[in-house]
């Protein structure tokens, strides 16, 4: 299977691990990740203001390119996924936005939200299947692993349609597939403190500490995430008691290809 892939700025810099372990794992699973050409930064955050247009154009350019290359766009960073999926929803359902954005971008054919945006975890679940992944595991990760969702993959659930927003299961099913023992903890779908550290670093520190304490008290030995900002905040403020890694690192380890990454 070939699929158009949008890596995003952080996966080329601070979060290279998230990207490279995803690529080597995909090879084992029979997926060719086709990085789209000349992609631009998604902007990191989606602005909900209804008259916002310029900040959404880079996502549209990526979506339009994927439409011409298979019709699906694979994302990996939680923030990119959130921004691109929400912009795609606007292209599909907000006529005013769609008309203005298309008038500016002037693609050969107007883009109206035709591309299907899928996160790497959704690909594992829906396109490959956790059963098939479990069959390919050579080094089961025998640890108590806490899957941390954060906000961006789940909310707003009407648009993201990723999983049950209050009781998600994709990360736990993933952890089971790679041979781990999933730890469900209360703060797994609460915010890590995100970008607010720029205005109020104590608030971010407090939120991240609460997430780590929650995972620790539930018995977790390690926390996995799909978001570079969550990883940074949790590592920085978590007190170092539990390590936080990208879920793709454990996947590559379990598939026996971590050294190739």
């Amino acid at each position, binding site marked *: 299977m070939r699929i158009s892939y949008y890596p*995003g*700025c*952080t996966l080329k*810099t*601070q*979060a290279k691990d998230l990207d490279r372990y995803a690529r080597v794992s995909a090879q084992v699973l029979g997926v060719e990740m086709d990085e789209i050409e000349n992609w631009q*930064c998604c*902007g*990191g*955050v989606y*602005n*909900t*203001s*209804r*008259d*916002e247009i310029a*900040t959404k154009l880079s996502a549209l350019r990526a979506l339009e390119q994927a439409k011409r290359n298979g019709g699906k766009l694979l994302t990996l*960073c939680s*923030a990119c996924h959130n921004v691109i999926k929400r912009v795609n929803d606007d292209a599909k359902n907000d006529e005013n936005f769609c008309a203005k954005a298309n008038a500016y971008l002037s693609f050969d054919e107007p883009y109206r939200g035709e591309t299907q945006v899928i996160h790497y975890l959704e690909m594992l679940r829906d396109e490959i299947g956790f059963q098939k992944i479990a069959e390919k595991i050579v080094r089961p990760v025998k640890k108590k692993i806490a899957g941390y969702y954060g*906000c961006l993959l*789940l*909310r*707003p*659930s009407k648009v993201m349609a990723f999983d049950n*927003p*209050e009781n998600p299961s994709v990360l736990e099913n993933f952890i089971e597939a790679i041979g781990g023992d999933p730890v469900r903890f209360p703060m797994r779908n*609460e*915010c890590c*403190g*995100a*970008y*607010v*550290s*720029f*205005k*109020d*670093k104590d*608030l971010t520190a407090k*939120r991240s500490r609460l997430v780590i304490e929650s995972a620790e008290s539930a018995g977790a030995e390690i926390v996995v995430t799909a978001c*570079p*900002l969550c*990883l*940074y905040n949790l*590592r*920085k403020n978590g007190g170092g008691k539990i390590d936080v890694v990208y879920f793709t690192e454990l996947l590559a380890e379990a598939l026996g290809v971590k050294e190739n990454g």
Partner: protein
Amino acid sequence: MDKRETGEQILRISGTEIRKCMKCGKCSGRCPAYREMDIKPHQFVGYLIKGKTEKLLESEAIWHCLSCMACVERCPRGVAPQGVIEAVRTTVTRMQGKNGISAEDIPPIVDELIPQQLLVSAYRKYNK
């Protein structure tokens, strides 16, 4: 823009039907930044209904909202308090000299491990 027009603009770009609010307070109850906010999420909706536009524009809470969408997800009436907060923040940052952070604020915050995602996100949220 006068006060009334500014209020109408905030309402328009908020993308939500504030009159559906039944003041249950669930949004504020679930807000991770509740303690840090001078105006609470449910009050953003209430103040907009009452036309207290100036108070909204002077709010410090717009810099503490995490955009985590917990209030939107958990509102039993389908109202989006975050949409109102974002509309106010966007209205403020679009004014001359009202950005939440400046380029000079960035270097002291940057460390070796800071993800580009954080720089981009914070700048997008706090600057125009």
